[in-house]
């Protein structure tokens, strides 16, 4: 009777074992190690996982949403206008998420909520809510970018925006 039971359960256990550790446990272990190492390298140095906090990038990025920061985005080229980038503080653990609207050497101004670059209005299809910000023209330095959030319905003093040095831009927001 017991032998019968063993013969019945044996294939069941074998099936579970294949699911858990594969047909070749050594190869599975190597695969797991490679996967862990790859995830570590990717999510530590290439695609930094982000959790958005705050409303300054709404409606494009909602509060508490998840995203990734591509740190390799600017290896081949410099940041472009319209890119949403991560700006570091003292290190990479907390970053500021803003959109680049002004490039080095340009002159930027806000007139009744509209951005003017070198005197010409900037088309901003991502800007859904009208605002009334008015700021005098400002020259962006040679190694600086002008960043601002998409949610400009809040008063300007509650919003972090302005010129940021190139070396503080860690990468481009992926999604």
């Amino acid at each position: 009777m017991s032998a019968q039971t063993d013969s019945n359960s044996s294939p069941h256990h074998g099936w579970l074992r294949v699911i858990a550790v594969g047909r070749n446990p050594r190869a599975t272990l190597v695969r797991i190690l490679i996967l862990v190492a790859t995830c570590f390298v990717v999510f530590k140095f290439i695609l930094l996982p982000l959790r958005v906090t705050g409303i300054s990038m709404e409606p494009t990025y909602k509060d508490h949403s998840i995203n990734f920061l591509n740190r390799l985005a600017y290896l081949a080229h410099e940041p472009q206008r319209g890119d949403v980038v991560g700006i570091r503080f003292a290190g990479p653990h907390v970053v500021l998420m803003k959109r680049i609207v002004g490039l080095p050497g340009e002159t930027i101004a806000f007139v009744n909520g509209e951005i003017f670059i070198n005197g010409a209005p900037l088309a901003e299809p991502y800007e859904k809510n009208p605002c009334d910000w008015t700021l005098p023209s400002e020259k962006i330095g040679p190694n600086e970018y002008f960043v601002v959030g998409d949610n400009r319905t809040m008063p300007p003093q509650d919003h972090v925006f302005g010129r940021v040095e190139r070396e503080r831009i860690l990468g481009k927001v992926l999604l």
Partner: protein
Amino acid sequence: MKIFWRLIFCAALIALGFWLWTTIFPSPEKVIRRRLEKLAANVSFTAGQGNFSRLAGGESVAGFFSTNIEVNINVPGHEQVTFASRAEITQAALGIRERLKSLSVKFPDVNVALAPDKKSAVADVTLDAAISGGHDDVVQELKITFQKTSDGWLITRIETVRTVAASRFTIATPVTFVASGRYGVSVGMSLLEVPGAPSGQSGTGICISATGQNERCEQNCRDKKCFQACSNAACSNQKSLQLVTLHRLRVSNT
């Protein structure tokens, strides 16, 4: 094979020795990091914390600072904070514990640069503070200067680092005056002026009135009369007025 295991054993022994050495005799960088962790823990408090422990925590904060200090923290959207003595630090730490339900302070990034004489150090840190009831965390880069004393590494100076160079909307030193509210309750008002801005120059003046019930009114203003009208409007449906703050912003030429 024996040699291999012996090598492994030696390497493990060396690693253990190194770990023990650095634990018993930590580097100044490590000591400063630990000081900052402790400071963050002492500044923080939770809603469920008892009064005694809150008081003890608040009083212990001053112990991290030197007797001669210069603290100047200016976070966009918040009032500028300056301290020049340990007593002011203690007072502020206790005041915050009375005003807020909870506060969680962290320094997620710390870069320590030791001076060549190893008697002072500058820590470039990211301050991340979560305030109860606040929608967003307060995040600000700070430069903290430490001095080595007989009491260990003490903070002598804290200054704000501008991660994003603020645009020409700047909030400057508040000028406070007191007036009477329409319900006979005293109203504290702050008129914020930006130095260097010519008076009367066109710019956005924003009046923000906040009441005890967190009701808010915002209005573009250019003169004091408008500010007062704004505060009255915000308070018209409030029976007990707790706080009215008025901000005036001007476009700065600096």
